[in-house]
């Protein structure tokens, strides 16, 4: 079991932190106004890749950010070239990149396709100018359709991200967003409930009372609307916030939800290799100077089992008892003695082979997990 996928990564994440500006909800490891340091960043990234010692073949590779598509062609090409050397793709691999509609050009798309990128995740967030304004998101909604059109010739899988629960948003606005996304003919949609992360602009506005968040009831209605609308359009609700046409699920993200191992390279990147969780520094200057490590934690077998339970429950398929025991060495029922009670409460479904969240359980997944821990 030395190369078990929960110990030895078959997936890699690479972080590109550059953005044109910071959106109101964003608390990621990003930098704005540092475009002149892109070359130095790629140098530092290469230096970190050297620590892999040898090329690591992967089944999924994901370039996220930040805004990876914000890199000019020359830098983008260098990145793709370097990654090909360190993370060679297995046959039939999934190769994803995040992009913004406004920074994606025809030339960049060609470049991506040439290097084997076969999945693009577009940060659309909304088609409604009002919502986009609240989110402090600069793009013109019409660019989303344009970008999808450009991509569809050469990239087989296109996903877009949408945010719901934006202050002022109504069911009608949200239904419109969902319909317009569906009309694009794409195969994957992520719907994220807006969260007010500490320190972000939206968090400060909410704290000072300038921004009134939606009620819990309204948020729930919007979430239910998304589930209803998208599943009706043949999308599978395969994770709390993710929907895909059959066979078009994000394989890379499923690694996270299986609690499998993955490499993580770049500013603020997290990795999980050999049962050790590590996170890189979020300090841009430190990263450029090669001071990468920030925190590292070796999990106990029981902690790993608990964590595996928590993340796997986010999947529609839930937890397979047999696989779970093989992966963690623990019996699910011993790790979560209150499981049966939660089945009684109607938030979990137990088929004896699998345990998964019921429709009602999905709305309160965090509380269900908390009860199980």
């Amino acid at each position, binding site marked *: 079991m030395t190369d078990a996928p929960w110990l030895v990564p078959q997936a890699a994440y690479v972080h590109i932190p550059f953005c044109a500006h910071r959106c109101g909800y964003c608390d990621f490891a990003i930098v704005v106004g540092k475009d002149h340091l892109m070359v130095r960043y790629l140098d530092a990234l290469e230096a970190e890749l050297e620590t892999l010692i040898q090329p690591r073949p992967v089944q999924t590779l994901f370039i996220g950010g930040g805004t990876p598509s914000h890199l000019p062609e020359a830098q983008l090409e260098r990145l793709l070239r370097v990654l090909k050397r360190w993370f060679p793709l297995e046959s039939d691999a999934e190769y994803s990149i995040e992009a913004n509609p406004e920074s994606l050009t025809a030339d960049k798309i060609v470049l991506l396709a040439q290097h084997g990128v076969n999945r693009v995740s577009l940060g659309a967030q909304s088609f409604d100018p009002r919502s986009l304004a609240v989110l402090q998101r600069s793009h013109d909604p019409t660019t989303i359709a344009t970008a999808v059109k450009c991509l569809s010739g050469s990239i087989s899988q296109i996903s877009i991200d949408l945010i719901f629960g934006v202050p002022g948003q109504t069911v009608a606005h949200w239904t419109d967003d969902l319909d317009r996304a569906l009309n694009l003919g794409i195969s994957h949609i992520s719907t994220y409930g807006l969260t007010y992360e500490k320190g972000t602009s939206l968090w400060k506005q909410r704290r000072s009372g300038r921004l009134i968040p939606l009620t819990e009831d309204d948020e729930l209605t919007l979430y239910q609307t998304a589930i209803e609308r998208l599943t009706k359009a043949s999308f599978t609700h395969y994770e709390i916030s993710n929907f895909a046409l059959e066979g078009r699920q994000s394989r890379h993200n499923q690694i*996270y939800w299986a*609690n499998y191992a993955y490499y993580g390279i770049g500013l603020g990147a997290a990795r999980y290799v050999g049962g050790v969780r590590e996170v890189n520094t979020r300090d841009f200057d430190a990263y450029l100077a090669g001071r990468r490590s920030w925190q590292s934690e070796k999990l106990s077998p029981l902690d790993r089992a608990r964590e595996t339970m*928590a993340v796997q429950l986010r999947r529609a398929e839930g937890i397979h008892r047999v696989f779970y025991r093989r992966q963690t060495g623990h019996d699910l029922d011993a790790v979560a003695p209150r499981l049966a009670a939660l089945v009684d409460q109607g938030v979990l479904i137990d088929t004896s082979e699998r345990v998964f969240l019921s429709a009602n359980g999905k*709305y*309160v997944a965090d*509380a269900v997990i908390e009860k199980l821990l």
Partner: protein
Amino acid sequence: MTRRTAFAMTDPKLIRNFSIVAHIDHGKSTLADQFLLKTGAISERDFRAQTLDSMDLERERGITIRMHPVTIYYTYKGQKYELNLVDTPGHVDFSYEVSRSLAACEGAVLLVDSTQGVQAQTVANAYLAIENDLTIVPVLNKVDMTISRPDEVAGEMKSVLGIEPHEILKASGKTGAGVDELIQAVIDRIPPPPGDPNSPLKALIYNSHFDTYKGVVVYVRLMEGSIRKGQRIRLMRGGTEHEVLEVGQFRPAPTVCDELGTGQVGYFTAQIKNIADANIGDTVTDAHHPAAEPLAGYKVPKPMVFSGLYPTNNNDFEALREALGKLKLNDSSFVYQPEVSEGLGFGFRCGFLGMLHREVIQQRLERDSDLDLVQTAPNVTYEILNRKGETIAIDNPQKVPDAGQIEEFREPIVRVNFLVPSENIGDLMTMCHDRRGVFVRTEYLSQTRAILVFELPLAEIIYDLYDKLKSVTHGYGTMDYEVLGYRAADLVRLDVLVHHKRVDALSTIIHRSTAERRGRAMLKKLREEIDRHLFEIALQAAIGSRVVARENIAAMKKNVTAKCYGGDITRKRKLWAKQAAGKKRMKMVGQVELPQEAFLAVLETE
């Protein structure tokens, strides 16, 4: 640290044993420190260090070194006197300990803050001293302060306690002014201890503490005869015999001496393993030449306030038993016995002297052991006369029998003395009537201050009456109480059902007329304290099968993190760990998680 000095037994004529009694914060500790300073028992530097730390010290003293006696020496008119200062606790919960201390003395310094005047505890302690036939040396403290009003306060002392103004001394604990005159007054006015040095040994045990190396350290006041190392002694009531290993005095550090003689105050050790063998109030005598009769001793104080103490994790039951056992070693007034609650599992029913005592015990448990505990709301001891004519003590609402078996339900009544500004009398009257108080009398100390006496059910005062008094009187009111006995009342047990399950630890005994109001208040509080769950929680308050109040806690509707990718898992981990730790402090009742705070909802009154 134990010191050893050459020692000669003091002639009883040159001994004075006394306490200082005062209301809390009237400066007793500072004045006691001045005594030590003036008699050379501590240095100027120690004095300053103690004064500077007086806040901390006061707190620690209240809890750990209360009733520590000190032996000091003072030369007056060419004679060297031995003065034994026996400390007394200031709080009403420990008033029985004041009597214990006073039984070891012939006199008491009655200390009154000249800026604040006579307070409830001043009156209560002065009466205790008078009841014990002690000579009172009245003194006004803090006379150096500009807001001091000695003449007015002297007038209060005259009208309440009958103390003549010309008897009253003036002093300042802070500057030391008047302290020498006070010490001289103690020598002049307080009689020397009586007793025959040649009679068989008779010593009163007035306190004790447990020392890991020496066993029980027994604090004694010698009434007759003497006690020395190697002597075979007998504890007259306990019936056990021991050989004395060490005899000493506190000066203020424990100082070994050869012998303690008639009239002296000090300690001895005799490898006594169990503090219960050295009962406070017992008489120590010589095993070979025993005294004929033991001393009168004192009444053993009865715990007045009870509450349940449960480990949140049932596996910690034995660890809790051990922790309680350790506490009991140093506090004989604390009692506990195992009990089982349907909702909370295995725990202990603990009895305390009062609310402060309860708080002190709780703090010690938390400090000394690493246990997560749930403490149920405090209740007093009731009495039930059943149909068979038996009287049963009810220290736990769970023990209340069916209504059909109850002939009479009785509750403890206390007489409360309030000392308040005259302008607050109306508010105080309302407050006491709301709590089923019966007015006894009003007495004016002066034009601006009065004593109000009420008889109140103890249950109505234990929890928050003191806080309410402080708030009504803007901090100027004080109170003191004594237990009168039991009286019949229309009492009922009010049960709380959480999600249709009766939680026995939330049951409470109340007066029928307040059932609805209390029920509503309790449920409102429970609704605040219990987190929303995945299902709607029904809360009900009921007398028997009759529901008197109800509330609902709505189900949680949406609670799910939008994103859970690589880095998010690391962040979530910490949250999960925190939640798992937080859950350790929760108690499961059926499928409902109850936090510790929920168990105190019973105390909500409005």
